[in-house]
């Protein structure tokens, strides 16, 4: 690490603030954060809204670095996570409040916010939306993990009963200025989360697309990396689950979903949805589950097509 005078830290904090699109007042919080980083303790506050915890469980599947190394290896310090923290009850509320007051942490948000029903998600007796706002205002960076936090996901689908929205939308509607990095996925792949955190802590924010997604992971369509792309090119299509062939007619969302899972594979290079002969359901796609009338598979549509009566033959010419 370069010379760590207070002056140099403040200077670094100011440029990082500018990079993040944050105001000059963020500089000193960032300087404090950088000091922590220099000591290998970049503080991370992981807050959950309407979440299934799948993205957290997925994160724990990280291979290199493994979860222990992630937590104790000196890059970051997970100050609070509801699933892992020893802190319970008022001790937990205290930890979160202390950090929100201090600022200078990276906020990782998982799960959607019930914007239409604040009672729909509470923490320590307060709506989680309020907590997320307070934390985002003081964070040096905000990363939304998973499709729920990034795009609303299943809880945020049309007609949902809580008015659930993504954390991104919630913060924008509440006029919180924060440059947000979006890591969708249902769940998010641990490599995407760990890789993004590592980039932020070592080099600053990674190259993002127009949606704030790291281009390294979301730059290509699933279709671009699909192991069955050859079948697609040869018009060899699977008709039923479990068959060989391109699964486009089974409703595969590969052509519209930006993610690299078919190349990266899941669970430490073990398998992937496509490799397991199941179509991509577009879980990292911005519209995942959003429209109840858009099914995840094309199986019903194919069945309807097969059921449709064949076109009637041309009428016979009567020979008079």
């Amino acid at each position, binding site marked *: 690490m370069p010379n760590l005078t207070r002056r140099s830290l403040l200077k670094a904090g100011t440029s990082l603030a500018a990079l993040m699109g944050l105001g000059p007042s963020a500089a000193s919080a960032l300087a404090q954060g950088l000091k*922590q980083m220099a*000591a*290998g303790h970049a503080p991370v506050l992981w807050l959950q809204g309407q*979440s299934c*915890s*799948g993205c*957290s*469980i997925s994160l724990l*599947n990280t291979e290199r670095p*493994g979860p222990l190394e992630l937590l104790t290896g000196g890059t970051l*310090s997970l*100050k609070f996570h*509801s*699933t892992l*923290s*020893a*802190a*319970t*009850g*008022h*001790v*937990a509320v205290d930890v979160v409040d*202390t950090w929100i007051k*201090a600022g200078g942490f990276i906020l990782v948000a998982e799960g959607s916010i*019930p914007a239409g*029903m604040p009672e*729909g*998600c*509470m*923490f320590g007796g307060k709506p989680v939306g309020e907590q997320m706002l307070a934390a985002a205002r003081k964070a040096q960076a905000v990363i939304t993990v998973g499709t729920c936090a990034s795009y609303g*996901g*299943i*809880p945020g689908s049309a*007609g*949902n*009963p809580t008015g*659930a929205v993504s954390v991104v939308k919630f913060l924008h509607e509440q006029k919180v200025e924060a440059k947000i990095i979006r890591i969708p996925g*249902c*769940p998010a792949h641990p490599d995407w989360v760990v890789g993004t955190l590592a980039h932020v802590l070592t080099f600053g924010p990674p190259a993002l697309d127009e949606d704030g997604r790291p281009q390294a992971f979301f730059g290509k369509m699933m279709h671009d990396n699909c192991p069955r792309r050859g079948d697609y090119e040869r018009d060899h299509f699977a*008709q*039923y689950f*479990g*068959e060989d062939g391109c699964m486009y007619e089974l409703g595969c969302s590969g052509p519209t979903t930006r993610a690299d899972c078919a190349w990266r594979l*899941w*669970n*430490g290079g*073990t*398998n992937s*949805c*496509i490799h*397991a*002969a*199941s*179509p991509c*359901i577009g879980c990292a796609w911005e519209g995942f589950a959003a429209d*109840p009338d858009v099914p*995840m598979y094309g199986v*019903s549509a194919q*069945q309807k097509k*097969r059921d449709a009566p064949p076109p009637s033959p041309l009428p016979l010419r009567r020979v008079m």
Partner: protein
Amino acid sequence: MATTIKIDPVTRIEGHLAVDVEVEAGKVVRAHSSGEMFRGFEVILAGRDPLDAQQITQRICGICPISHATAAVLALDQAFGIVPPDNGRLLRNLLLGANFIQSHLTHFYHLSALDFVDVKAVANYTGSDRVLQGVKAWVAEQVESRAIHPAAPLLPGYNGTYLSNSEGNMLVVRHYVDALSMRRLAHKMGALFGGRLPHASAIVPGGVTQDITATNVTACGSMLRELRRFIDRAYIPDVVAVGKAFGDYFALGAGCGNFLSYGVFPETADGAKRLLGCGVLHGGKRARFDPAKISEDVRYSRFAAPSGLHPTKGRTTPEPTKAGAYSWIKAPRYDGHVMEVGPLARIMVAYHAGNKAVRSLVDRTVADMGVKVGDMVSVMGRHAARAIECKLVADACVRWLAALRPGTPDARPKPPKRDKDGKPIRPDTPEALKPDRANRPTCTRFRIPERGAGVGLTEAPRGALGHWLTITDQKIAAYQCVVPTTWNCSPRDDKGRPGAVEQALVGTPIADPAHPLEAARVVRSFDPCLACAVH
């Protein structure tokens, strides 16, 4: 004069739970369990394509998604009138088995252990274990750096009495670290057949899409060996050690003493025989399970009446500011009674049914812990039951793996068959839908009916799980779930009877109201999952 202590949030569970306990003369006299997060999956599913069910319901929970996928496809199988081929049934068992192993290991080590183990003591470790030396160095460096909340997330915690035996303490800390790798390995094992975990894509109505190869079978066998070794040599001994060190927790947290299990891991195509059987234990007496006796009250839950509906008629109409309601969790009751579900329920039901493997393991473990079978109905008993069940499931996975039959290279369902005149048979007629036994597929074809109904009853790591579905016009007309933690963390029912956790907390001694560690231990023994409970 009672003091009310709030534990909000209860951490190291899944999701948002608040518990409050009223304490008189140092003991809990009354407790309330409040589910604090609602999404409305049952509303979200209505009107969707039936095949969305096993994908969407997995997102009810990230720790037990395979359980929901299983319940969903069982309901869909019934609605479609199909039966998976043997390979499909076995693969579903392996997938659910991997999920059970992952969930139980995570629960004991990463969710519960910090209630019993003193992480601060690692600062005094003088042994030669490299991992523990590493953790010690990290704690020391954290404290020295004067960071706010050093060694988070393992600290700070409640003050209280933790494991005093230094060696035993260190062993559990070491295994906490090892278990991080083990739970990841269990998921890796499941991904071999599920495509990925959590949220596996390969589970579909009719079976599992992943085909069986010598490679994935061998890899699974290798991972299973390592997992079973850890369960036998670390997990169970650790539970025994913690059980002996905290013996008074065999006399705490008994709860309602009624147990319900739908049975899980079908050993036959018709599901009649299961690894862990179906049954009801009411006041210690066995009763035959009747699914018609399930109902959900909502008087104290944030939902509009009517109360007491069976899930086939169930409704989910949220009322976030309903007077008198204190939880987003409904109150399921069986034949009007409060029930506990989960590993303890399954083990007790199996024990009373005379299951030899269960009896042998339970008898041995209680002897090792210096207690009796009756003492299993307790905080410590729940941890023990979970560990015993983990071993049973892992051992059964060996059998299921060995029974898989890889197909020939073209083992997947073939393109349209031809009739005796050579004309192609429409692919979805009964003739064409007959499973191709010679090729040993892993899933069978199906037709989505215009109308239909199905029920999927299975067991998640945390207990009895049911999905009830009806189809109209080829769409989901209604979908209701009653999930394990809905039973366990249920609020009072219409008659004012507290749920299982609420009852289990009564009688718990609280040494320091500012640090209700004892109450937290009782709650966590149930392995609550709130995303599941409310859904």
